[in-house]
């Protein structure tokens, strides 16, 4: 009898239906484990998803765009020469630890990022961290930086002086890395601040259970629109299918990292909805210019005409891809709408090869030093938003090339080795891509083409292109800059410097009852607009 009772109790406990997540808690399924939550030193999207909820920057991106609007800074002005920026801070804003957000706190944050001797900079570097984004966006530390002074000119006014105008300055400041942290908390925790983040955001940090989840709760004193759900839990579910399973089972409310094949599954499920992140990512094929054959523009044109991008996008992106005609995705303001893409035409490709003296096609290449080898086309071993199915996409492209008489051998290697080989300019033909950080065209184009001849970019040398890009970096009027970026795209296209294959709108899946989730092109979204119905 006792055994029977016990058994039925256990059975009852075990088979009691899984409790649906409460309406006050929004549970999001992430693809992996965060690194830590100090926005100044992290670089990954999984960690920044959390820090975006806990911290605010001086400025932020507006809705789903990369236009900049005020956040902790209510308004700002810039001097006519584009060098002096004055930010007026929102009054009465407090960090989660109760300390005030004032000019002194903002200056303190800037100095921490900028000055290598700052105790809270130095300790991080000694612990192996780097202020990588500050270095990349603002030219380096101390005297190397484009920033020459940051001062408090009143209790709530901050003045930043630059050595020379920097066009993407505001767009840079809106990046998650430049969110403002509580100086008191950083000083208290030192290098452990990343485990005890304190900002001014709509949510405050509660707990991080390693390999499991991060728990946040609504900040009742938030300066902006108050969070609609009281609690946020971000669960780490590594496997894409398993994450979708958890969503279907009602254990989580939303997720990222959907397999392209599962897009249809989500669309076909009456309880789920699909949201697409506005495209901010481009996949490309790059040539190595140490390969003699690729130095001939007609050969590169033959490649451009041989690949059927439309068919690839239609078949392998689960309906979320778009054909790319240039490096910048269409949402960027430097995008060149006039640019006419190469048409898909195997016969044209063959004609171009014939013209280049390769009537028999191309299957072997010659390196600069005379070494000959079969043409190896390197494809990525890891899925990225711009190439969600790299192997299948590479196979499709290789088949297209073969139709035009270009015979490639597909090869891949472990991701780290792949990046290594690419960085050292050791691969003749390879796939890769880019996801934008801040919505500025400079962030797409300059990293790749401002240093002509870099091994990392397959030794591609286009000095006039680099000049245009460097000029665009220094102008302050958007219209003038946009013109230069459009020109740059045309130059890149005319030279067939690289083949741009596809943009993707990475899909996100949600339960039907989730409302107000606004996917952002940079991948960092605010959860305070989310509600559960």
């Amino acid at each position, binding site marked *: 009898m006792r055994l029977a009772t016990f058994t039925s109790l256990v059975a009852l406990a075990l088979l009691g239906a899984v409790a649906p997540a409460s309406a006050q808690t929004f549970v999001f399924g992430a693809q*992996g484990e965060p690194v830590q939550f100090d926005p100044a030193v992290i670089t990954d999207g999984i960690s920044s998803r959390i820090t975006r909820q806990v911290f605010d920057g001086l400025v932020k991106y507006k809705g789903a765009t990369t236009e900049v609007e005020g956040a902790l800074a209510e308004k700002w002005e810039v001097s006519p020469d584009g060098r002096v920026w004055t930010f007026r801070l929102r009054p009465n804003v407090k960090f989660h630890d109760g300390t005030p957000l004032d000019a002194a706190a903002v200056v303190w944050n800037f100095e921490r990022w900028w000055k290598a001797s700052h105790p809270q900079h130095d300790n991080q570097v000694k612990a192996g961290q*780097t202020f990588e984004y500050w270095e990349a966006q603002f030219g380096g530390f101390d005297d190397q930086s484009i920033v020459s002074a940051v001062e408090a000119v009143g209790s709530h006014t901050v003045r930043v002086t630059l050595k020379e105008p920097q066009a993407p300055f505001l767009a840079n400041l809106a990046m998650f890395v430049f969110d403002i942290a509580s100086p008191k908390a950083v000083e208290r925790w030192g290098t452990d601040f990343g485990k005890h983040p304190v900002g001014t955001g709509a949510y405050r940090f509660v707990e991080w259970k390693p390999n*499991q989840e991060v728990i946040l709760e609504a900040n009742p004193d938030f300066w902006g629109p108050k969070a609609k759900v009281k609690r946020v*839990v971000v669960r780490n579910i590594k*496997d894409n299918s398993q994450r979708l399973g*958890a969503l279907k089972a*009602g254990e989580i409310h939303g997720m990222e990292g959907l397999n392209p094949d599962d897009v249809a599954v989500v669309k076909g499920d009456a309880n789920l909805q699909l949201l697409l992140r506005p495209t901010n990512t481009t996949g490309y094929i790059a040539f190595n210019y140490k390969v003699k054959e690729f130095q001939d523009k007609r050969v590169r044109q033959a490649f451009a005409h041989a690949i059927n991008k439309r068919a690839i996008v239609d078949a392998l992106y689960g309906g979320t891809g778009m054909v790319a005609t240039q490096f910048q995705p269409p949402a960027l303001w430097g995008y060149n709408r006039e640019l006419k893409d190469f048409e898909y035409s195997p016969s044209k490709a063959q004609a171009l090869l014939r013209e280049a003296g390769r009537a028999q096609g191309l299957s072997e290449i010659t390196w600069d030093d005379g070494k000959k080898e079969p043409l190896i086309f390197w494809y990525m071993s890891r899925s990225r938003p711009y190439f969600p199915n790299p192997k299948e996409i590479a196979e499709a492209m290789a088949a297209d090339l073969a139709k035009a008489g270009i015979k490639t051998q597909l090869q891949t290697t472990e*991701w780290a080795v792949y990046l290594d080989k690419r960085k050292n300019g050791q691969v003749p033909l390879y796939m890769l891509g880019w996801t934008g950080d801040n919505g500025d065209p400079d962030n797409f184009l300059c990293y790749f083409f401002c240093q002509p001849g870099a091994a990392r970019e397959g030794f591609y040398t286009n000095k006039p292109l680099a000049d245009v890009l460097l000029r665009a970096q220094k102008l302050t009027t958007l219209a003038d800059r946009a013109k230069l970026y459009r020109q740059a795209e045309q130059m890149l296209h005319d030279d067939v410097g690289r083949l741009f294959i596809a943009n993707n709108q990475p899909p996100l899946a949600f339960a039907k009852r989730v409302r107000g989730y606004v996917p952002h092109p940079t991948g960092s979204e605010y959860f305070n607009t989310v509600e559960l119905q």
Partner: protein
Amino acid sequence: MRRYAIRRSLTVVPVLLGVSVLVFSFVHMIPGDPALTMLGERATPEKVAEVRARLGLDRPIWQQYVLYFGNVLHGDLGVSVVRGDPVTTDLLRRFPATVELALAAIVLAIAIGIPIGIGSAVWRNSLLDSLARLGALTGVSMPIFWLGLMLAWFFGVRLRVLPTGFRLESGTTLVPWTNFVMLDATLQGDWSALADALRHLVLPALALATIPLAIIARMTRASMLDVLSREYIRTAEAKGLSRRAVILRHALRNALLPVLTVIGLQVGQLLAGAILTETIFSWPGIGLWVYESIESRDYAIVQGASLFIAAIVVVVNLVTDLLYAAVDPRIKYE
């Protein structure tokens, strides 16, 4: 016996030393620069060099090993390359989750496997025996990840009766006194958390138990069949003992000896299987941790955890051997 125990224990030392050399070399033979993996697509060569120097990767490999082994002897498995946290601390925090899962799996495997094996042997060639053998064969050949996904899909997604992963429902706050969730829930008198933890344990334990269960069932059957044909069993039966007494008191005891060894060996299998099971069920133990660390090339964690797992397997095998000698007085190792 004592001499044997000492000698057998001493063999552990060279084994562990060898394991440490192997693990260290394998981890360093994996192609790809951990520094580059850490820094990603945007790394500058200077940054890569800086990180390599910080990790000591620019030194000769033997120097790296000597340094590492010295630290290991002091219980220091290094720091995570990605997060900078001490590996030993993280390891000890995650280990209870793996132990909880492995224990549940082995208990399940023994509790189901041994009775099936006995029944199969006693009613040899019956329908039950055929079904059990077929089941065992299927169990042994079933890939854990497939079975895990199917279990999660069927019980979690279709029927919605069991969770598809994790140790507790999202957002549950249970103070981690020991990190054994069920123990913590019991100690804190949080019965709903205990029931929740049990529910979460069912599917991963079942997935992980399948292979050992099948092996234990097959081994028990074979061993029972062997023992049942012995003369002393016939004598016992001739003496008029009940069938139940013959099987449980006389046959089973002797038949279980080889099963004990198999169970010991399964511990290694369980820890290996835990990598897959934990990944599928987002179970925050050592397996998931190692899997994620392999991906992020956090070689300090991979190295530390592999060494730790190897040490456990070696020690469990040692204990099994010693138990075997203790249980069966006929066995002498000279």
